């Protein structure tokens, strides 16, 4: 991964409407596989659509699809914003 290019954040920390590129997933093989099947993987551009109150899920747009991701998982997905 190239460094110094942008800020690195978790999905949770992203602002609503912000777009970033996934650069890593902190978690085991199982989590990686579940996310990968939904096309969330390093290199992929994602846009945060909303977050929910009380540690609820984050929703994202990946290409034309919209996905909801639990709070804990959202904390383990690292993106780089430009």
């Amino acid at each position, binding site marked *: 991964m190239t460094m110094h290019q942008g800020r690195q954040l978790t999905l949770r920390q992203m602002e609503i409407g912000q777009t970033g590129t996934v650069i890593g997933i902190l978690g085991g093989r*199982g989590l990686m*596989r*579940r*996310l*990968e*099947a*939904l*096309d969330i*993987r390093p290199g992929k551009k994602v846009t945060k*659509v*909303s*977050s*929910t*109150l*009380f*540690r*609820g*899920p984050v*929703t994202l747009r*990946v*290409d*034309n*699809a*919209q*996905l*909801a*991701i*639990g*709070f*804990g*998982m959202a904390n383990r997905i690292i993106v780089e914003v430009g």
Partner: protein
Amino acid sequence: MRILLVGNPNVGKSALFSRLTGIHIIASNYPGTTVEFTKGYMKLGEEQAEVIDVPGTYTLEPTSKAEEVAVEMLKDGDLVIDVVDATNLERNLNLTLQLLERQVPVIVALNIWDDTRHRGINIDVAKLEELLGVPVVPTVGVTGQGIKGLVRRLPEAKVPKTAYSGSSSDERWARVGNIVSQVQSLSHRHHTWRDVLEDVSDHPVGGVFIALVVLLATFWVIRLIGESIIGYVTDPLFEWLWTPLLMKVSLALGSGGFWHSVLIGNLIAGGIDYFQSFGLLSTGFYIPLGAVLPYIVSFYLALGILEDVGYLPRLAVLMDTLMHRLGLHGYAIIPTILGFGCNVPAVMATRILESRRQRFIAATLISIGVPCAALQAMIIGLVGQQGGQYVAMVYGSLFASWVIIGLILNRIVKGFSPELLVEIPPYRLPPWRVIGEKLWLRVSGFIKEALPIVLSTVLVVNILYTLGVFDAIANIAAPIVSGLLGLPKETVVALVIGFLRKDVAMGMLAPLALTVKQLVISSTVLAMFFPCVATFVVLFRELRTRDTLKATGIMVAAALIVGSLQNLIL
């Protein structure tokens, strides 16, 4: 010849299945509608081919039980129709490439083709076909467009020459990216009504507001339609057509005797009382057709609209935090809502949950706290006569039990509960024809399945009653029922019959002249106590023996505790 419909969740596999086989099955706008395969037949040339609607999967390396079923079924297919969502080409093609690596002939149905245009997506179909090495046919599942072409080209399905077997997932994604960049071009898309609606319902505050409006409106519509059907259709029909007929039969049978009591039941004040007479032709017909059917129609109409519009996954996102406390995640709200119709499909739908722990908790909570439409219709009919606040007491007790037992199970059940990770489908305006077909499917299913069981149950009740079996049961259970729950010992019989049909069991409470308090207690206990036999069977299938017994133990204990508390407090 066996043809499999394989693809991501919510891409229109079930819609295509209906088109190909003429068999209508439930299709809804959220991932996980089909958790079990459905089989049908179509003519292919001279041959009769078997068509199977496989549960949706994102990958052939399964991550949930529904996906496992899908991968398992691939082994026995002669031909795969890979259903691809044309508006999400990249993710869908990843599964396509995985399919192409298996030595099975594939044809691609490029579905939801109608949606590509106003999303500004242009796909070069010929180029895609060339790159994949298998036929690609654009289709629209809801209208049937392109289906003929798909059927015509089925024989061309093949294993591509360039199949890259055993490629790593990175290599596969790279190939997908390469293909997509060659075949797809994006142009400007218009901001539409649904973008606006999606934005509002994804907003944390706007979303809660919309959820409240949607749920209240849903309850209101269900009640309004249910009551209207009863008031303007079924009750008049029973009163003006069926009652006079039964009175003639009653006279012909000499107003008494064995056959009279089986067919007509007891005459109440010289006439037929559909809740109390308890004959096969009186109460036996009235419960399913007069009391329950109107609410089945109104409930499934409302559910069908919510499902097809695509609202339920958004509700799941909002409910996620609460459901977490219960050891589940937001998506468990979908089986739960299905349970308000019937617990059988609800327990089956718990397969969309990833872990065994979640499925156990969800199935147990549904069996305890979610009364089916048939039971609800009878509760509204009987308890509602005494006043709406009593119905609210029953629902309040059930909801409180659902939450409290969930909190407890989350503490004590071992295992792992993964978090919510789900695709939120776009809002869609479902064609009325599609809504109507689905409603008819569910209503006729209810009539076919429930009517015979209700009639047999009423018959069994009559026979056991004549044989005096009930008195024996009532006497044995009397200490618990009278002591703990404060109910007359005859209510035991209704609780026992609840195992067969809960609506009939509610009906058996009618002649007992219970006080309002007793009515509230007995309906609550009846709802929680034990699943009906049909639910029990699927519990065994989904949870296996040990967990089913555990779940049942929890239900019985919870029912007794809640009933006793009500007895103390009310």
